[in-house]
Structure formats: structure tokens, C-alpha cells
């Protein structure tokens, strides 16, 4: 987990002199909040999805099902540990970045509080979706397929370059998903106010951000219980054995 973040920090450090077009602000510093948002999606959403499929393959989930209240305990444990890892991932980027770059708003307590609020909203928007994806995909291999469109989504979500540089229809597509809004939210807290000029509509659009992320959270929390119950119901010794057999054949 450390190394990819280490590499991206190193690249950003090398490129720190390049400005955001039309400003004197470092493009690298502008990217850091977006990377924090991306971390929520990759460590949180994708992490939960992968953990869920793997735990079905090795029987962890069936073990939970065989234990009284085990399924509930399992899900709470998984989601909590993923959330903790997402927070750790955020700090792993943010703390070195605070020393390597100038221009991030990290001095006052209020911006940390806002950061925590956006992170919490982001986790609520992404973790249930991750759990749903993990429940729908039958094995860890096929879940790899969804990381591909996710990369594409990151590419159009204005993480590494202002989204305003993209054609309008791509901008509209990106604004349907949480990645863009998480990045925007993080930027609104960590960057100077003047930088909002590089955003769509020249604004941080915080109400819209809360609305979209909140919407994803509502969808996730509405769908996840039913999807997870269905997954739990279908779990049995023979279904684990079947998946195991499939995995064995794949390797052969």
C-alpha cells in the first residue's frame, strides 16, 4: 500500500514547479486532494469488494454464517477495518505532502474537521457500493474487471488535471460518480479559495457535493442490506466447494 502512494508523491514532487494553467499555483499541489479522494474509492470501495469475494472463496463468510450473529459481526468488522485502512491511506499521503509541498491548508483545526466530515461522507457513499459489488461478483478474478472502468473514471474525474480541460460530455459523465465529488470536496478544504477558479462554474459547489455523495450513500444503504442478505442466503458448503473447484481449474 505504501509504494504506489510513495511513487505518486515522488512524481508529484518532481513536477511541483508546473503551474495550473492560468495561475501560478503548483499543479502537483492541486492534485493532492484529488489523490486523497481517489484513495477513498480504491482502498475503501474496491477493498471491501475484493475482501468480500475472497472471503466467500475461502469460507470465511460461511464460517460467519454458521456462527450466531456472525454475519453481522463479520460485516461490521470488515467495513470498520476498511474504513480504518482508508483513513490510514489518507494520512500516509497527507502527512508527507504537508512537508514536501507548500500551499495546502493544514494549519487550522477547522480544515481538519471539514476533511474528516468529507471523508466520512465519502466512506458512507462508497463502502456500501463496494459491499454490493463484492456480493454481486462471484470471485476475486471477476472483480478485477471493475477496477478497469474505475481507472477510466479516475482519468476523467479531474484528479491529476483540472476537469475543465475535458470535453463537456466527459465532464457530465464524471459528475455522476463519487470520485469527482470526493476530489472536489477535498480540494475545497485543502486549497486556497482562489483555486476554485479552475473548477466547473468557478466554485467549490459544496452543496452539490454533499447532495451527490449523500445520494450515493442513500442508494448504497438502501440496496446493500437486500443484496448482502441474498448473498448470505446463498452461501453453503457446496457453493464454497464449487468456487474452490473453479479456482483450482483456473490455476491448472
Amino acid at each position, binding site marked *: 500500500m505504501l509504494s504506489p502512494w510513495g511513487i505518486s508523491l515522488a512524481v508529484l514532487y518532481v513536477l511541483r514547479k508546473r503551474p495550473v494553467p492560468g495561475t501560478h499555483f503548483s499543479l502537483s499541489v492541486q492534485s493532492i486532494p484529488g489523490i486523497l479522494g481517489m484513495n477513498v474509492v480504491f482502498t475503501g470501495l474496491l477493498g471491501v469488494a475484493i475482501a468480500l469475494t475472497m472471503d466467500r472463496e*475461502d469460507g470465511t463468510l460461511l464460517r460467519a454464517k454458521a456462527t450466531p450473529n456472525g454475519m453481522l459481526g463479520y460485516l461490521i468488522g470488515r467495513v470498520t477495518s476498511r474504513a480504518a485502512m482508508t483513513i490510514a491511506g489518507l494520512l500516509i499521503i497527507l502527512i508527507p505532502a504537508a512537508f514536501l509541498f507548500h500551499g495546502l491548508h493544514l494549519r487550522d483545526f477547522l480544515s481538519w474537521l471539514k476533511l474528516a466530515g468529507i471523508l466520512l461522507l465519502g466512506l458512507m457513499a462508497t463502502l456500501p457500493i463496494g459491499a454490493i459489488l463484492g456480493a454481486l461478483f462471484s470471485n476475486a478474478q471477476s472483480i478485477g474487471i471493475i477496477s478497469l472502468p474505475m481507472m477510466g473514471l479516475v482519468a476523467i474525474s479531474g484528479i491529476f488535471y483540472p476537469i475543465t480541460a475535458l470535453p463537456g460530455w466527459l465532464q457530465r459523465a464524471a459528475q455522476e460518480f463519487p470520485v469527482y465529488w470526493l476530489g472536489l470536496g477535498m480540494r475545497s478544504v485543502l486549497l486556497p479559495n482562489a483555486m476554485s477558479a479552475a473548477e466547473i462554474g468557478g466554485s467549490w459547489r459544496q452543496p452539490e457535493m454533499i447532495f451527490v455523495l449523500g445520494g450515493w450513500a442513500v442508494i448504497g444503504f438502501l440496496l446493500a442490506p437486500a443484496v448482502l442478505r441474498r448473498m448470505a442466503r446463498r452461501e453453503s458448503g457446496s457453493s464454497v466447494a464449487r468456487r474452490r473447484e473453479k479456482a483450482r481449474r483456473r490455476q491448472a
Partner: protein
Amino acid sequence: MRYGPVDVLRGVNLCVYRGEVVALLGPNGAGKTTTIEILEGFRKRSAGEVRVLGTDPEQGDEGWRARLGIVLQSWRDHGKWRIGELLAHLGRYYASYSTPEHTRPYNTDELISLVGLTKQANDKIAKLSGGQRRRLDVAIGLVGRPEILFLDEPTVGFDPQARQDFHGVLRRLSDRGETTILLTTHDLNEAEKLSSRILILAGGRVVADGSPVTLARQVSSRSEIRFSKDGLHYVHSAEDATSYVRALLGQYGRGIHNLEVRRASLEDVYTKIVQEFESRNVKRTPGRHARPNGRRRHAKPVTKVTA
């Protein structure tokens, strides 16, 4: 007190009583796993009535689940945990179902020694051998001090030593008499060694039910009597071996040598049942062994359970 009469399978009324060790014996594909999964509440039945500990498994709540122990065919979960840690962790889930008469969970150290893993108590689970792993699975199945323990093919892939150790664990457990055990196996010797009662399952039906001795008698009542007279060897088959031998000795007395009476062994019976089942099955659904696992559920006859 009657503990959990269990009605299973096509018109067969099976009751398993407290402290009994019952083996579900049958060839592969006979419906053993399906049966046990229905009892565990892991699989829906298409019809019929099932009661486990007085509750329909499909309606079983967490309190009901706390009274069951389950050991499935293949588990390799929690590889990074240590044995003691995992047992203590899982045990906590049962603590709220503890009563003064029946405390839960099992004491971790006692449980570890019961399954003979004391030396490995601090080992990572991924490092255990196949036999040790299976004994851990049994320990996990027992952690809530269940009233009934389900074991699905517990010794598949064991070497003889591991098998013997495992049988030792089960015998120690059944000697305590507090847990009813229902196990599946396709190994007749295992069923004979471990259980007080055997149910032979073939083609989704219980074809025989009883202790090893009654089973042999039930399926074949004829005995084979061998003896020699005047230097010649004779073989005779009789319904009532005792009367035959009495008459034989009454008539020839000291003229009879090498007398041997042999009732059809359980092994003969079981082999015959399996052969019959397999030849019937091949005729009905050709190539059933090549069928992919994923389709099994629809083809299995056992999901039709009637009381």
C-alpha cells in the same frame, strides 16, 4: 427429554436422539451433503417437514444457530490467525446464549486439548497440516458447546494416522455424551467405528437404518454355513443358521469339523447397495459424473424431503 427429532427424506422418519452418534453413509452423489445442508439451514428444501432441536431450520434464528455446531467439507479461512485467538474470538459470539444449565462457549484451552492441538495452540492456522486443520474445524464446530454437531465428510483426504487421530477426537467427544453427532461419510469402516447407528443413503432415499448388526440382518437375513464332513467341504446357505447347525450337529455329532457360520457382513450389504444404486443411475442419467458441479442442485433428488 427428547432432543431434536429430525425428519428427513422421502417418507422416511428419522429421529436422532440426544447423545447419539449417527452416520449418514452413502456413495458420492447420494445426497448426503444436501441432507446435512438442509438440516443446518443452509439450503432450502422443496417440500416436507424438518425439525432440528424442535425448530424448522429455515426459520431458525440466531439463538437456534447458537445450539448447532457445523463442520463442513473444506474450510481454509482465517489462515493468518492463531488457533487460540480464533477459538476465543468465535467463542465470544456464543457468550450471550449461555445459561446457568448450559454454559457457552467452551473453555479455549480445554477445547484445544480435546482435539489434540495443545502443541500448536500458538501456531498460525495456515501452517497446520490437513489433519490438524480438520481437527481445528471440529474445535470451531464445538466452540459454542453445541447440542448437535454436523460433520460433513470429516476425514476426506486423510492419511491413516490422521484418520485414527481424528476418530480419537470424535470418540472422546461422544464419550462425554453431551453432544449429538450426525456425520456423513462414504467410508463404511469409518461409519462402523464411530457411530451407534448408520443410515445408508442412496439415490436420495434412506435405504437402511440401524446399528451395524441390525443393518446386516435387515438387508440379508441369510447366513453362510461352512463345514467339513468325512474330509469333504460343504457350504450351505440358511435363513435360520442356529436351527440348521443344531440339526446338523444332532445328526452327525462328532463327524462335523471346521464349522463356520458367517452372516453377510455390512460390507457385503453396502457394496451391494452402492452397486445397485450406481447401475440404476447410469441407466437413468448417462454421464452424470461428468456433469459440472454448478448444475447439481437442480438434479439432486434429495431436496424433495417429505415427512
